């Protein structure tokens, strides 16, 4: 956030300078032009009155004017230089506050050649398909010369049509889709359906007073079945009716008109539809990308530290990132057992073992702690035979 403010200050500075310089220059030029026009009139007058020689005073005036023009030019040039100073400062602040080159990270942490472009493009295409951006996906297929089998595309094209409808603020195809898939959607359909009806209502609201009758009719027809679960939202919808005449935009209900509602419904719809098709709820690409935006700053910081302490290469184990990265609770998809004794992640050759007291340590730790035929649990006083420990799986 700080960096944004810093840069913004400079950019504002530049824009301010631009306009002030522009005003100033305009002013000076206007003055100059009026002066010159006066001079021109004088000269024309002179030439009509048959006086061929210029009087001494007139020569002086002309010379003065010429000098003035020169001054103005140099002044304008100076102002322009001043702007340049400000502009280059923006560049410097930008460099300082944002990172422009990420490439050094690749060479250290990851394999040099990067991601396989063919697979990457396929993943991107799938992302587009499931986002309902069929057209863009197809364009990419064409440009990247990748073909995706028809049967993979088909379920998405229906989705695509519905989303196109939603983009045009038309909820009908979506509602029909819900009706057709009611069984499979289960509990989820009420949530989505109510949201759609709500948006239809808001759409009427947006169109103004003359739709009032339709609105009330629509609400009577469609909202009844949702009354239990969405009482609050419905109240606020009905409340908005009061302000219909004076204009919703100025009322406390103006947030209802926010176009973000429509974007949201597109997302919710895509999500539900994807889960119906047996795919993960969120697009894998966007989840990964968001995880990346969290991981990247940490990795960049790490690199900075490593450079300063001049440790040439700590990445002795290339198969693991050097630091843990916390992506938040929602991004945890697998159990990871790290042995509390050895601080190592378990794997197939070093699985977690449950002692008879219920404590879990890794097999390697178990072997290290065993003396003779006896093992004392590192966490409680229980002594046991190491063969009594059982392998478990999280």
């Amino acid at each position, binding site marked *: 956030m700080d960096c944004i403010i810093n840069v913004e200050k400079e950019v504002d500075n530049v*824009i301010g300078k631009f306009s002030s310089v522009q005003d100033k220059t305009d002013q000076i030029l206007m003055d100059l032009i009026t002066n010159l026009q006066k001079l021109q009139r004088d000269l024309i007058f002179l030439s009509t009155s048959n006086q061929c020689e210029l009087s001494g005073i007139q020569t002086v005036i002309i010379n003065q004017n010429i000098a003035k023009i020169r001054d103005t030019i140099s002044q304008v040039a100076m102002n322009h230089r001043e702007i340049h100073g400000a502009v280059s400062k923006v560049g410097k602040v930008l460099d300082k506050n944002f990172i422009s080159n990420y490439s050094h990270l690749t060479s250290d942490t990851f394999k040099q050649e990067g991601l396989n472009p063919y697979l990457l493009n396929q993943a991107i295409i799938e992302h587009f398909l499931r986002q309902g951006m069929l057209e863009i996906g197809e364009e990419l297929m064409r*440009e990247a010369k990748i073909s995706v089998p028809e049967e993979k595309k088909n379920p998405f094209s229906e989705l695509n049509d519905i989303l196109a409808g939603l983009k045009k603020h038309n909820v009908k195809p979506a509602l029909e889709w819900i009706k057709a898939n009611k069984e499979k959607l289960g509990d989820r359909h009420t949530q989505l359906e109510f949201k759609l009806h709500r948006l239809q209502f808001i759409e009427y609201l947006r169109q103004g007073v003359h739709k009032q009758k339709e609105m009330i009719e629509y609400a009577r027809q469609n909202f009844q079945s949702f009354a239990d679960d969405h009482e609050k939202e419905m109240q606020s919808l009905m409340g908005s009716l009061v302000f219909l005449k004076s204009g919703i935009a100025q009322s406390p209900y103006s947030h209802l008109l926010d176009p973000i509602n429509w974007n949201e419904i597109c997302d919710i719809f895509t999500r539900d539809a994807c889960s119906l098709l047996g795919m993960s709820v969120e697009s894998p690409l966007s989840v990964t990308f968001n995880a990346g935006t969290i991981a*990247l700053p940490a990795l960049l910081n790490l690199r900075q530290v490593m450079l300063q302490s001049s440790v040439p290469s700590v990445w002795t184990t290339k198969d*693991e990132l050097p630091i843990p990265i916390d992506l938040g609770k929602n991004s945890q998809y697998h159990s990871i057992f790290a042995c509390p004794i050895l601080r190592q992640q378990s794997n197939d050759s070093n699985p977690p073992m449950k002692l008879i007291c219920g404590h879990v340590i890794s097999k390697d730790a178990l072997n290290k702690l065993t003396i003779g035929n006896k093992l004392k649990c590192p966490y409680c006083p229980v002594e046991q035979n190491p063969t009594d420990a059982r392998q478990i799986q999280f």
Partner: protein
Amino acid sequence: MDELDAAKCCKRRLEHLKEYCNPRATETSIKQWKKRRLDRMLVEHFLRSGYYDSAIKLAVHSNIEHLTNIDLFLVSRQVEESLLRKETGQCLAWCHDNKSKLRKIKSPLEFNLRQQEFIEFIRQNKRIEAIKHARKYLSCVEGDQKIDLQHVMGLLAFSPDTEVEPYRTLFEESRWSNLVEQFRQANFKLYQLSPTSVFAITLQSGLSALKTPQCYSKETEKNPDCPVCSDLLNKLAMPLPCSHCSQSRLVCHISGQPLNEHNHPMVLPNGNVYGELSLKQMAIDNGGKIICPRSKEVYDLKDAEKVYVM
């Protein structure tokens, strides 16, 4: 006027970035912002990879034209296409426009272009013109370029179908695509753009941060919501390092809920661990019986024992 536009463009982008830090931002608007960020990076990635039409379509679709450098890349598109048609004119004009900056970053682009022109003359067997061309443009070289130039001059003695190295490689068509690549890099450097795609790097670090050994073990261990377990990303992440973890992070295999003091991990007699809450729910649904989802073995709820993970 161009400068003013650029400044305004800067301002708009800053406004966009500020939206994210806006304390009044709701969850929905943050989500939308993140989606736009992804689209933004995708557009940039497409532009870099040369998928210009896709980039434009996506930018228009997501209404982010003002946040991307499409204009910049459209200029380079023209140059690249002309290079692929084996025309050097546009690229040379571009070099001329950015002469001082190119000299500052010591780009050998112009020299390489002239060299290629020379090679083309030889290919067409116009050796006199080639010599004239060399006298005109290739007379002032320095440093490493001298060796290159000597090889190129050596071409005068060979025909295009020669088998002698290094002259054979000099006649190869792939030199033109190399020129395109060189031009791209010079262009990025000139505008201080990162030479690699930010999207790809972010995706890589994301894949790494999410990747666990389980994503590559047996089919039953896979989690349909895990992005790295999905087919394509799974293959993509193959060469990348795994995430690092020195503290156990356990989730219930059934519900995906974290396992902790509120949701105790319970081990079944077959060694599989599940969350207490999921097992209890399953026992209620199945009349006190638990069916292990992995092995399909049937147990009683009281068979499950608590385990303690530090």
